[in-house]
């Protein structure tokens, strides 16, 4: 019955062994419960039509009409903006740190990046609400600085250090021989990077980007503070309009809807969408990073 456990039966006699396995099993159980709850509780929504839920932009709890379109659109836009904003900085920073900084400076730089990457989202959110949204409001002459654009840029700043430091790891872990060989053929360090190192590091760098995106997709509080909170797909797809993404929607409405009927089911359906999205991104990201190491 316990054939999935270590074949060496000698440890089966030790209670410590069973305690260890019990707690490990509990973790697995919680994961299963969590997952099933998300699926079963959102079932009433899926039964009404998956496609309709994903594309409709109407969200009216008073009339029990739920469509996730605006939030999915908002998540997509905000994440894309974050990516576009973060990518040039993160990649150039990663390349510089790995290839052109002395080992000591590199460590200082990496340390700073990792502190930034670990900073709580709410801190970014406060700075975003206090500074970024005002700057954006003034700079673009808007009525209000809480827009999809603001949320995108703020998320970009948030995921920048994550992507930079992971991409740097990926670049730095390309075996020295590739660099050396290119250099020994007379290439400059920049040429050596572009021609010999970059192609090798690419899967890992993409992995880093996907992990960063996963974080961007799931970030709640920072976005809530600057996105504006309107469930719309703005006319003309205006980036400088308030909007809503999935986590911010959940953060706003979860407390008032807990356990109550279709509204709750709809929020959990949103959660499931988000869950699968992040799972896909981080799963693909980790896979690429791992592959890079081999």
């Amino acid at each position, binding site marked *: 019955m316990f054939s999935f456990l270590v074949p060496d039966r000698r440890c089966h006699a030790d209670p410590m062994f069973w305690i260890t396995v019990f707690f490990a099993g509990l973790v697995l159980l919680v994961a299963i419960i969590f997952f099933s709850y998300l699926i079963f509780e959102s079932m009433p929504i899926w039964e009404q039509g998956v496609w309709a839920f994903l594309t409709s932009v109407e969200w009216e709890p008073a009339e029990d009409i739920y469509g996730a379109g605006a939030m999915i659109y908002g998540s997509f836009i905000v994440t894309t903006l974050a990516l576009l904003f973060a990518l040039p900085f993160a990649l150039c920073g990663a390349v510089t740190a790995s290839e052109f900084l002395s080992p000591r400076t590199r460590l200082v730089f990496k340390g700073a990046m990792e502190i930034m990457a670990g900073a709580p989202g709410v801190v970014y959110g406060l700075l975003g609400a206090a500074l970024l949204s005002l700057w954006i409001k003034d700079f673009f002459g808007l009525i209000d600085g809480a827009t999809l654009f603001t949320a995108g840029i703020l998320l970009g700043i948030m995921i920048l250090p994550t992507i930079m430091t992971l991409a740097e790891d990926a670049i730095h872990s390309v*075996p020295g*021989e*590739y660099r050396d*060989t290119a*250099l*020994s*053929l*007379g290439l400059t360090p920049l*040429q050596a990077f572009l*021609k010999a190192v970059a192609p090798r590091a690419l899967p890992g760098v993409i992995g880093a980007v996907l992990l960063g995106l996963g974080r961007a997709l799931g970030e709640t509080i920072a976005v809530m503070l600057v996105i504006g909170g309107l469930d719309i797909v703005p006319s003309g797809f205006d980036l400088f309009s308030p909007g809503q993404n999935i986590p911010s929607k959940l953060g706003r409405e979860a407390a008032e809807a807990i356990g109550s009927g279709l509204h709750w089911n709809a929020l959990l359906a949103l959660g499931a969408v988000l869950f699968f999205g992040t799972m896909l991104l981080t799963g693909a990201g980790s896979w690429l990073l791992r592959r890079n190491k081999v």
Partner: protein
Amino acid sequence: MTQGTSQRKELSACETAVLIDKVSFYYGNKKALSDICMKLPKNKVTAFIGPSGCGKSTLLRCLNRMNDLVDNVRLEGTISIGDQDINEPSKDVSDLRKRVGMVFQKFNPFPKSIYENVAYGPRIHGLKDKRELDEIVERSLKRVALWEEVKDRVHDSALQLSGGQQQRLCIGRAIAVEPDILLMDEPCSALDPIATARIEELIVELKERYTIIIVTHNMQQAARIADFTGFLFMGELIEFSATELIFRKPKEKKTEDYITGRFG
């Protein structure tokens, strides 16, 4: 053979390719090489032997300034190739590396085709003419005795080749940029004995065109292929002379101890 042997014995009779004059090398405060003086003869195979950490690879990498990339290092003394001090600030290090090619321990073709690997260096240095590139690829692969084996599949991936073939390809890639000197850092240590024998054969052939300097862990290998051998120990050049002398009648006690396997 007798004629060859008598020629090999005289270091002073050979033209000098590289002059190493009072070279000391530091990693931070740690002295890795101290006061090395050597004349490396042209169109000969010179081997550096010695236990791990003795500085033989460091010395080799001084010759094409690969140590430049390491942080916090310092070199004293001069290394000249031809009449030029290679460490002169005005000297273009890319030019130096074009003249001094290098082959590494781990064979490492780029994940490209066989053709692209060989054409890589010339192409980077601005050669675009397809016919010329074709010629260089064919010539280089012939020199490393790989052409016959791969001529029908030069556009296949280099990674499909066997280990020995890959290492020969790497040597071909290095000579495609027409160096005068080839540095080899334990080029056979990742290969099986048969592949090793082929590379050794190749090295002996290549010395007609190139000055070869090889670092090796394998004393038999030095004995088989090197005309001259330098024994390094803890950053010092203990003895440097014709290979036969080193292995048959070493002057220094330390050399003898190392050769006879008493340490190392």
